[in-house]
C-alpha cells in the first residue's frame, strides 16, 4: 500500500510540475499577476509530494519490504539501518528520485529566499525549473519507476553493493546531486534573463549566491567521492580520470569559470553573453554527467542501468535542453552586447584569461571522455583514454590559471599599470621560484612536475600572504579587530578558496613525487620495510560484521623504536552476494598517511599485503575543504541580503505609487 501511495504522490508531483512550467510563463508573457503567482504554491506543493514519495520509498527499505523490486535487489534484512537508507539512492531508480527531490528542494529555496525578485522574472525562473522537473519526473515514471512491485515477493533481499556500504557513500550522492542540480538554478536565471531581456549587474547579483552555493555542494560532493575511492577501492589512488569522475569534474570546472565571470558581470556589467553561455553550458554538462553515469555507457560502479530506453530518454532530454537554450541564446544574445571596456592589464583581463583557460580545459576533458564512446558507438573500434592523456593536457593548461589567479586580486578593475603590479609582486615571484627549486632538491625529487608544482604552491601561499598584508596596510592605524571586521565576507571567501588551491597543489605534488608502495608476501611474524617504517604482520583472525564475514589482519607499524600505529585491514565477504571486498586500514597523519590493504591468502598460508606511504595526501582534502569554506563565505556576504532588502523596499514603494 505504501509504495502505491508513493507512486501516486509522484504522479501528482508531475502534474504540479507541469502547472509550474506552463502557468507562470503565460502569466509573465501576458503580465498577469494572478497567473504568475501560481508558480510558488505549485513548486512548494510539488516538493511536498516528492518528499512524501521519497519517504515512502525509504520506508520500504527500512522495513525490508521485499515485495518492492528495488528493495529486494538493493537491501537485506541484516544490512545496518544506515545502509538500508543509503540503499534508497544506491541504485538507478532511487537516485533519480533523489535528483528530482533535490531539484524541488532548490526550487523551494528559490521561492523562499528570492522573494524580492520582480514577479515576471521570478515567474520565468520557476517556469524553467518546472520544465526541468517535469522532464525528470516523467523520465522517472516512464522508464524507471522506483515503486515497481515484485510479485511474488522474495523472502530475502540481495543486499546493497558492498562497495557502497560505506559512510562516504551516505553523503556523496546527496552532496553531488545538490551541486549538479544547483546549476539548474543558475541555468533558470540565465534563461529567464534571455526571455525577459533583463541582463544587468542586478541580475548577476541575484544569480551569484545561488551559483556559489551549488559550486560549494559540487566541490564537497567530488571531494567526498574522491575520499571514498581512496580508502574504499583499496589501491590508494584518489583520482583516476575515470569517465564518471570527469562527468562531475567538467561542470565543476565550468562552474568555477561561471562564478568568476558572474563577478565581472556584477562589478562591471561586462562579459554578459559569456556568463549566460557558461550558465547554460554548466547545466548542460550536469545533464551530460547524469547521462554518462546513469545510462550504462561506461563501466563503473555507478552504471546500474543497462536499459537502452533510459539512455535514449536522457539523451533526448539533453538534446532538448541544449538545443532550446542555445537557440534562445543565439536569438537574444546580440541584444546583450556591450558592457564596460577594459585595459590589457586589468582585473577584467586576468579573469577573462582564466575563463578561457578553464573553458579550454573543460573541452579537453570532454574530448578525452567522449571520444572513446563516439568511436565505439560508430563501430570504429574500441579505445581508452587514460590518466597519461589527462595529465599531459591538464597540467600545462592549469599552471597559467593558477599563476593568473594570484595576480588577479592585486590588479585594479578596468585598467592598471603593469609596473605597479610587477613591483608589488616581484619579491613573491623570486621567492616562489627559489622555494620551488630549493624544496625539490631538499626532498631529492627534481623533476619538471615537482618543481612546477612546488613553485606554483609557493606562489599561491606567498601571494595570499601578500594580499592579506596589503589589505591591512590600506587601513594603517586601525586596530586588528576593526580591520578584520571591515573586510567583507566575499573577500575572505575569495582568499580562502585561492589559499585552498595552494594547499591542494602541495598535497598533489608531494604525494605524486614521494609516494611509495610495495606488495609483499607475509607469514605471521614477518616484517617488511617501507619509507623508514617497519610493518610487522602479527597474524589474521576471523571477524564478522552484521552482513559480512571477514579475515582481519593485525599489522604493527613502528618507526625506529617508536610505535606508530596498529592497523587492521580486512578482507570481507558479504554474505548475501558472496562478494569479496578489501577494507583498507589507514593511519592518517598531517604529513603522511600509512595505508595497508590485505590481498589474497596463498596456498602456504601466507598473505599478500599491500603497503603504501602517502605523504601529504591529507592536504589534498584540506585544500578542497578550504575551497568549500571559501564558497560558503562568498555566498554569505552581507551585500546580497542588504541589496535584497533595498530592492524589496523599492518594489513595495513602486506598488504603492501605481
Amino acid at each position, binding site marked *: 500500500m505504501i509504495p502505491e501511495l508513493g507512486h501516486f504522490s509522484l504522479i501528482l508531483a508531475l502534474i504540479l510540475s507541469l502547472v509550474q512550467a506552463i502557468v507562470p510563463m503565460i502569466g509573465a508573457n501576458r503580465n498577469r499577476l494572478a497567473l504568475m503567482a501560481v508558480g510558488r504554491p505549485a513548486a512548494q506543493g510539488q516538493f511536498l509530494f516528492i518528499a512524501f514519495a521519497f519517504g515512502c520509498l525509504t520506508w520500504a527499505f527500512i522495513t525490508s519490504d521485499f515485495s518492492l523490486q528495488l528493495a529486494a535487489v538493493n537491501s537485506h534484512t541484516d544490512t545496518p539501518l544506515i545502509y538500508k537508507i543509503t540503499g534508497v539512492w544506491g541504485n538507478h531508480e532511487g537516485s533519480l528520485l533523489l535528483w528530482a527531490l533535490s531539484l524541488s528542494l532548490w526550487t523551494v529555496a528559490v521561492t523562499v529566499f528570492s522573494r524580492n525578485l520582480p514577479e515576471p522574472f521570478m515567474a520565468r525562473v520557476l517556469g524553467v525549473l518546472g520544465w526541468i522537473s517535469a522532464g525528470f519526473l516523467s523520465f522517472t515514471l516512464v522508464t524507471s519507476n522506483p515503486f515497481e512491485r515484485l510479485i511474488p515477493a522474495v523472502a530475502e533481499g540481495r543486499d546493497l553493493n558492498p562497495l557502497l556500504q560505506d559512510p562516504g557513500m551516505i553523503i556523496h550522492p546527496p552532496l553531488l546531486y545538490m551541486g549538479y542540480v544547483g546549476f539548474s538554478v543558475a541555468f533558470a536565471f540565465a534563461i529567464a534573463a534571455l526571455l525577459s531581456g533583463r541582463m544587468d549587474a542586478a541580475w548577476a547579483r541575484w544569480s551569484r549566491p545561488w551559483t556559489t552555493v551549488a559550486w560549494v555542494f559540487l566541490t564537497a560532493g567530488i571531494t567526498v567521492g574522491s575520499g571514498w575511492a581512496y580508502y574504499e577501492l583499496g589501491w590508494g589512488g584518489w583520482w583516476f580520470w575515470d569517465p564518471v569522475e570527469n562527468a562531475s569534474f567538467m561542470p565543476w570546472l565550468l562552474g568555477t569559470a561561471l562564478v568568476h565571470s558572474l563577478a565581472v558581470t556584477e562589478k562591471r556589467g561586462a562579459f554578459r553573453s559569456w556568463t549566460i553561455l557558461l550558465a547554460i553550458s554548466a547545466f548542460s554538462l550536469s545533464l551530460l554527467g547524469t547521462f554518462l553515469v546513469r545510462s550504462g555507457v561506461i563501466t563503473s560502479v555507478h552504471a546500474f542501468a543497462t536499459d537502452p530506453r533510459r539512455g535514449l530518454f536522457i539523451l533526448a532530454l539533453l538534446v532538448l535542453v541544449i538545443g532550446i537554450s542555445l537557440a534562445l541564446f543565439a536569438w537574444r544574445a546580440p541584444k546583450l552586447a556591450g558592457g564596460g571596456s577594459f585595459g590589457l592589464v586589468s582585473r577584467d583581463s586576468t579573469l577573462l584569461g582564466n575563463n*578561457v583557460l578553464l573553458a579550454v580545459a573543460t573541452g579537453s576533458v570532454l*574530448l578525452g571522455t567522449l571520444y572513446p564512446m563516439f568511436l565505439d558507438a560508430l563501430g570504429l573500434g574500441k579505445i581508452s*583514454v587514460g590518466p597519461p592523456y589527462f595529465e599531459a593536457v591538464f597540467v600545462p593548461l592549469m599552471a597559467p590559471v593558477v599563476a593568473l589567479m594570484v595576480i588577479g586580486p592585486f590588479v585594479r578593475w578596468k585598467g592598471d599599470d603593469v609596473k605597479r603590479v610587477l613591483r608589488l609582486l616581484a619579491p613573491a615571484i623570486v621567492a616562489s621560484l627559489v622555494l620551488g627549486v630549493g624544496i625539490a632538491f631538499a626532498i631529492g625529487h627534481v623533476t619538471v612536475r615537482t618543481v612546477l608544482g612546488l613553485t606554483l604552491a609557493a606562489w599561491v601561499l606567498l601571494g595570499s600572504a601578500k594580499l592579506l598584508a596589503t589589505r591591512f596596510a590600506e587601513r594603517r592605524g586601525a586596530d586588528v579587530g576593526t580591520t578584520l571586521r571591515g573586510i567583507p565576507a566575499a573577500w575572505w571567501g575569495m582568499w580562502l578558496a585561492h589559499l585552498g588551491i595552494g594547499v591542494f597543489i602541495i598535497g598533489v605534488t608531494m604525494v605524486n613525487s614521494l609516494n611509495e608502495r610495495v*606488495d*609483499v608476501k607475509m607469514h605471521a611474524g614477518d616484517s617488511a620495510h617501507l619509507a623508514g617504517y617497519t610493518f610487522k604482520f602479527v597474524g589474521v583472525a576471523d571477524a564478522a560484521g552484521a552482513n559480512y564475514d571477514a579475515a582481519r589482519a593485525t599489522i604493527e607499524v613502528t618507526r625506529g623504536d617508536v610505535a606508530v600505529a596498529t592497523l587492521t585491514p580486512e578482507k570481507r565477504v558479504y554474505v548475501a552476494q558472496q562478494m569479496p571486498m578489501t577494507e583498507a586500514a589507514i593511519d592518517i597523519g598531517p604529513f603522511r598517511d600509512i595505508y595497508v590493504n590485505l590481498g589474497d591468502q*596463498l596456498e602456504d598460508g601466507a598473505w599478500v599485503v*599491500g603497503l603504501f606511504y602517502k605523504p601529504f595526501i591529507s592536504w589534498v582534502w584540506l585544500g578542497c575543504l578550504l575551497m568549500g569554506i571559501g564558497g560558503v563565505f562568498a555566498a554569505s556576504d552581507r551585500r546580497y541580503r542588504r541589496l535584497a532588502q533595498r530592492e524589496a523596499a523599492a518594489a513595495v514603494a513602486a506598488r504603492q505609487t501605481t
Partner: protein
Amino acid sequence: MKPRSKRLVLLGGAVALLVGAVALVLSAFQQNLVFFHTPTEVAAGKAPVGKTFRIGGMVETGSVRREADGVTVRFAITDTAKAIPVSYKGSLPDLFSEGKGAVVQGTLGPDGQFRASEVLAKHDENYMPPEAQHAVDQAQAQKAAETVQQ
C-alpha cells in the same frame, strides 16, 4: 594604445592561446590513446609489440598461478576461441576470479607473454565489462560463421 590595436592584441592573444591549447590536446591525444584488442586479434599478431594496449575477455578457468614471491600472478585471458598468457605483479581487484570477465592493460612481449600493468575487473557481481563482453561476442560470432562455412 588605441582601442583598435588593443582589440587586435587581445584577439591575437586569445587565438594564439586556443591554437596552442588545441595543439597540446591533439599531440597528447595521439601519444596516449590506448587501443583495445581481442585475444583472437592478439593471437593472430594484429596487436603491436611493445606498445600499451588493452585486452578484454574471461579469465580462463584453471589458469591462475602465483609465483613463489606471492605477488606475481600468471593467468590466461580468453575470448573462448584463443587465450593469451598474462603476467601481473601487484594486488588484484576484489572481483577478479577464474571464469569471470576482466580487462588487462599492458604491453605484449616478443615472447607472446602479455605484461599487465593494470587489471580491471567489474565493480558489481552481475556486471560484465563491455570490452570483455565484446571480445567474447566476437569470438562466438566468428565460430558460428566458421560452422556455417563447414
